[in-house]
């Protein structure tokens, strides 16, 4: 292929035509644009006028240039130019394309697929058979699947990187299964030197030529996060140490709303020559406990993600003690030893029960608290159901109370006998008791019991059929020391002794701390040993794919604890979070000790980069450019000839205007509405679609606005019409909604908006405008429509406006609420049933909210309506009585707006006598 400036030409001889361009120039230059013939009576006046210049009969140079460019583009285009012409890769015979397919491939997977695609293209051209094999997903029979190259094109998309390294054993056995004569190998390496790679290379070299493609950039992986000195330390490692790099570490987890989001971020800096980088995050416990994984921002790979498990979580423990702390007697405090034991490993919170439950701690410790108040039992049980752990300690109070005596208290694991017992005291026969060894079913099984632990007092469990299974620790004489009961997903544990050293020496011993650990009250050591995990089965909760995306584990089978202990993910155990009985363990692609070692290929193996230089045929572009230039030439010629003047400009302007107008006006309208509605108080009505009704509603609000301006300190701006579907409602304190039978029912979205509006303190005045012919209810078409409209709305129970409602006295004292019609049927939110009239008070004591709706049919807008000049638009009633009615209608409007804007402060006046009374004293 003939190549010029890196551009190859399929038909280079066509370029000779470029030589003809100068001739074309001269030809075109000689021919002026064709004239227009025009009928024009005024020609008589033109006779004898000469043109100023004679130059203009030549085509202007820029037009010539335009045409030249167009022709040149066409000539070059037809010559078939190709950018980055590729020389063919020679070779025939079978071809094996190996992809490592590990997590390290994921960061540039698309480039790899492209590379393979390019190799396939070549193979198609050369008619070679191809087999593509992913090393992390070897073909089940071990055979090399050689096929025609074009058969692989569609299947390429089904390859995906796996979040683990190739299985060494399978890989070692693989070359023995081949049944092929000889083939060339293209190996797309992930750049990591894992065991087995050299053996495979040796095997491959026996069959043919091996070419390696590799991304020379360093691989970065994230080690599991650890807990050190109160900080979360995250380490990253990389395969090549050259160069300083800065990366962003992102911690992700659920926010309080249950939405996964970035919780915090930090910079991770690799120094020049260093393979490790670390960053310490000092996070508030609440935030830290929410973190589910760390990621390196911008790298799509399972190696750049590390999931966190319980090892990172510091459990929140709430301590509640029943006794008032005695000043200065710190060591007697019921929670002192607990605090000492838990401080290093858990976050302690205090406060009253309500606050504690809000914080949703992992454990609540009740140290000698006998009674939990009625109101707290329910939320406490809910919290238990959801997995909480209630740890109770006995004490004098518990022993003295009758909690869980006759029947089992839901917050106690067992029933208690009255009084408890004291052993080994001055007045008793027995010796203080030691502990009996823990049974196999006990969570404490295996803990060594110090000799000096003695129990002198305890509360006694009532013998029950269920008692035996609930005892997890007992004294040497078999009386229960620790009992446990499961409640939902949570549990209630009772230590039958006090949490301080009053009843036993248990809190003084190391056993106490270990017991707390075993009960998962405090954090345990980070990584369990294989022995710990032996015989257990762990169920995957969430797993990572090769790209580092967290996926639901679905129905993946459980994993044996021994496998989990190796910490090395494989096909059966993808990295992820595994849940066991009472804790969770994360399996990450990169462990705490994993080294990322870059590959070192023998010098005999050619190593290429991944970059694909695609051939780009420029023909289409050049021809398109030529066409565009010719189109410009058409316009320019028309313009020169004076034919573009009217049609062109107006059409062009029209097109531009059409393109720009909607976006502009839309953007403007939303902002304008917000500004209009919020700059001042604005009354608004709902657009019903009936032009007449809308106009009256608007005029009515205008009249009401004027009235308010004149009489009160409310100074509203001009009212607005609101489209429920498109406009934001939150700006308006008040919506007038005239009901017509024809208006469309708002969409669900609009209803959601309306409900939000009502809950947010907005008020809607529904007006059926038919009080002259119908009473409130189903009787009229408008009434039925109103019920249809209001059904999805979040409207509380209603009642006819009571005589002492605050609406009757927010500004004027009113008992009638006429509009254009004079009906007494006005409905507002019902008063709470327990509102009672206090003796000697004019009003009931109603300190509730502003009523969210007022419903009536008096056609208030028509009574309020004024035109622009302030004249009333509709007659009301007859004569003076009518004017009186209009006045009352206006007063109702004023009262209503006062109610909307000031709430029920007038109601508060019922308290005035009491306040005065108190001030007087």
């Amino acid at each position: 292929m003939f190549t010029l400036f890196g551009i190859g030409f399929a038909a280079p001889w066509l370029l000779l035509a470029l030589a003809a361009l100068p001739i074309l120039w001269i030809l075109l230059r000689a021919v002026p644009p064709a004239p227009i013939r025009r009928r024009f009576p005024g020609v008589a006046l033109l006779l004898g006028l000469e043109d100023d210049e004679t130059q203009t009969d030549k085509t202007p140079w820029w037009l010539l240039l335009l045409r030249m460019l167009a022709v040149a583009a066409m000539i070059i285009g037809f010559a078939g130019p190709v950018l980055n012409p590729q020389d063919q890769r020679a070779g025939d015979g079978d071809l094996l394309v190996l992809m490592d397919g590990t997590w390290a491939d994921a960061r540039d997977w698309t480039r790899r697929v492209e590379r393979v695609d390019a190799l396939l293209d070549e193979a198609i051209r050369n008619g070679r058979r191809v087999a593509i094999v992913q090393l992390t997903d070897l073909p089940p029979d071990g055979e090399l699947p050689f096929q025609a190259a074009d058969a692989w094109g569609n299947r390429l998309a089904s390859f995906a990187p796996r979040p683990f390294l190739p299985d060494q054993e399978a890989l070692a056995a693989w070359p023995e299964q081949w049944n092929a004569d000889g083939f060339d190998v293209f190996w797309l390496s992930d750049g990591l030197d894992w065991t087995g790679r050299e053996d495979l290379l040796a095997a491959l070299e026996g069959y043919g030529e091996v070419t390696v493609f590799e991304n020379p950039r360093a691989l970065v992986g994230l080690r599991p996060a650890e807990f050190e000195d109160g900080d979360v330390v995250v380490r990253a490692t990389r395969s090549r140490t050259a160069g300083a790099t800065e990366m962003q570490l992102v911690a992700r987890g659920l926010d309080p709303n249950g939405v996964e989001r970035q919780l915090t971020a930090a910079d991770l800096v690799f120094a020049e020559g260093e393979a490790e980088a670390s960053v310490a995050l000092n996070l508030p416990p609440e935030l830290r406990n929410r973190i589910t994984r760390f990621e390196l921002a911008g790298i799509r790979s399972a190696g750049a993600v590390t999931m966190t498990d319980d090892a990172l979580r510091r459990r929140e423990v709430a301590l509640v003690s029943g006794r008032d702390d005695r000043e200065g007697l710190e060591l007697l405090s019921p929670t002192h030893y607990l605090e000492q034991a838990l401080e290093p490993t858990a976050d302690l919170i205090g406060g009253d029960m309500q606050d504690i439950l809000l914080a949703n701690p992992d454990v609540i410790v009740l140290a000698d608290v006998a009674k939990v108040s009625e109101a707290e039992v329910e939320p406490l049980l809910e919290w238990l159901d959801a997995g909480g752990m209630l740890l109770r300690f006995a004490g004098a109070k518990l022993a003295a109370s009758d909690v869980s005596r006759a029947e089992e208290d839901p917050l106690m694991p067992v029933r208690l006998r009255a009084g408890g017992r004291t052993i080994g005291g001055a007045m008793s026969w027995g010796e203080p008791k030691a502990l009996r060894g823990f049974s196999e079913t006990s969570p404490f099984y295996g803990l060594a019991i110090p000799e000096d632990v003695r129990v002198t007092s305890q509360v006694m469990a009532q013998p029950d059929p269920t008692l035996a299974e609930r005892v997890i620790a007992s004294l040497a004489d078999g009386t229960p020391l620790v009992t446990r009961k499961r409640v939902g997903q949570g549990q209630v544990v009772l230590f039958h002794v006090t949490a301080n050293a009053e009843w036993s020496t248990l809190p003084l011993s190391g056993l106490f701390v270990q017991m707390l650990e075993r009960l998962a009250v405090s954090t345990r050591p980070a990584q369990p040993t294989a022995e710990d995990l032996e015989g257990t089965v762990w169920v995957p909760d969430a797993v990572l794919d090769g790209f580092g995306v967290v996926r639901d584990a679905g129905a993946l089978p459980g994993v044996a604890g021994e496998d989990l202990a190796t910490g090395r993910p494989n096909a059966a155990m993808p990295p992820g979070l595994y849940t066991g009985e009472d804790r969770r363990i994360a399996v990450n692609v990169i462990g705490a000790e994993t080294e990322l070692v870059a590959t070192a290929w023998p010098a005999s193996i050619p190593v290429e980069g991944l970059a694909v230089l695609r051939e780009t045929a420029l023909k289409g572009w050049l021809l398109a450019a030529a066409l565009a230039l010719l189109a410009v030439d058409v316009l320019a010629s028309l313009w020169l000839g004076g034919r573009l003047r009217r049609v062109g400009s107006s059409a062009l302007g029209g097109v531009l205007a059409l393109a720009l107008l909607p976006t502009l006006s839309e953007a403007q309208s939303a902002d304008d509405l917000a500004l209009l509605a919020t700059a001042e108080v604005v009354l608004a009505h709902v657009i019903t679609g009936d032009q007449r009704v809308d106009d009256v509603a608007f005029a009515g609000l205008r009249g009401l606005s004027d009235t308010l301006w004149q009489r009160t300190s409310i100074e509203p701006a001009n009212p607005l019409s609101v489209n429920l579907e498109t406009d934001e409602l939150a700006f308006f304190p008040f919506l007038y909604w005239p009901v017509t039978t024809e208006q469309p029912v708002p969409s669900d979205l609009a209803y959601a908006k309306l409900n939000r509006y009502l809950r947010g303190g907005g008020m809607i005045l529904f007006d059926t405008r038919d009080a002259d012919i119908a009473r409130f209810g189903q009787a009229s078409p408008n009434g039925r429509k109103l019920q249809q409209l209001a059904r999805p709305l979040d409207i509380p129970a209603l009642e006819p406006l009571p005589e002492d409602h605050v609406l009757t006295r927010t500004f004027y004292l009113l008992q009638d609420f006429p509009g254009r019609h004079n009906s007494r049927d006005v409905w507002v939110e019902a008063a709470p049933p327990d509102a009672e009239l206090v003796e000697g008070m004019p009003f009931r004591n109603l300190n509730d909210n502003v009523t969210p709706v007022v419903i009536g049919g008096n056609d208030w807008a028509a009574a309020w309506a004024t035109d622009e000049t302030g004249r009333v638009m509709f007659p009301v009633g007859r004569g003076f009585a009518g004017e009186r009615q209009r006045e009352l209608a206006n007063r109702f409007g004023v009262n209503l707006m006062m109610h909307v804007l000031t709430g029920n402060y007038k109601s508060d006046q019922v308290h005035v006598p009491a306040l005065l009374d108190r001030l007087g004293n």
Partner: protein
Amino acid sequence: MTAHGALRQRAEALAGPLPDLLAEAEHLAQAVMLGAHGRRRAGMGDEFWQYRPARAGDPVRAIDWRRSAKSDAHFVREKEWQAAQAVLVWVDEAQSMNFASDKNLPTKADRARLLAMAISVLLIRGGERVALVSLGTPPRSSQLQLLRIAQALSDETEAADYGAPVIRIMPPHSRAVFVSDFLGDLAAFEEQLTRAADRGVKGVLYQVLDPQEEAFPFDGRTIFQSVGGTLEHETLKAGDLRARYLERLAERKARLQDLARAVDWQYTCHHTGGSAQSALLWLYGAIERRR
């Protein structure tokens, strides 16, 4: 409905809202033609004006015996002096008038005919006598004459590119209305105006132009052709000619104005883009020449 019927109907519609046109009659000693114009003085006419005591020299035949019998003196019955105006209307029928720059605009010929017809309707309703020059008949004052005018105005005739009035009958001291675009040779008009001035004919030069002829909104290489196709002018940059064209047009208008002023005629220029009603009002005022 025939074409002239339609033209007449449109013209009547246009003339409808105007009061009857009373052409101002100058004092013409010899104006003897009786018409419906009372001169507010005694003279020849049909309508009773006044009784006056007979004076010496009054012919006996002039004495109104019935009135005289009511008293002792003799009375003469005088009638109101009435005079009718003769108005000649010339509408340019040249091809240059058949031009409209926009399909929404009427051609100049259309507008000229409409105005001519409307003014004829007004004049005849007012009792004047009207003649269309192309008819070649003397001025008459009848509904039939209106029909004839309408017929003549609607006739399509083969005509020259640019027109000039050829007036055979020109009653002395009559009025004349020339409606044209005045784009042709002005010498012919000059000659006619001189003739008219000699005969004491007063009148109106009414120029009708298309908006495009005023604006000359052309550009680029253009060959301009007259409507009839007899004249042609080629230019390579029409835009450059605009200023000079407009200058020439203004010159021509000034010339017409001067010409009109010299013979005590009136001149105005009307554009087809403007309203026909206001054009007719002006024409009405010009012919009536109320003082």
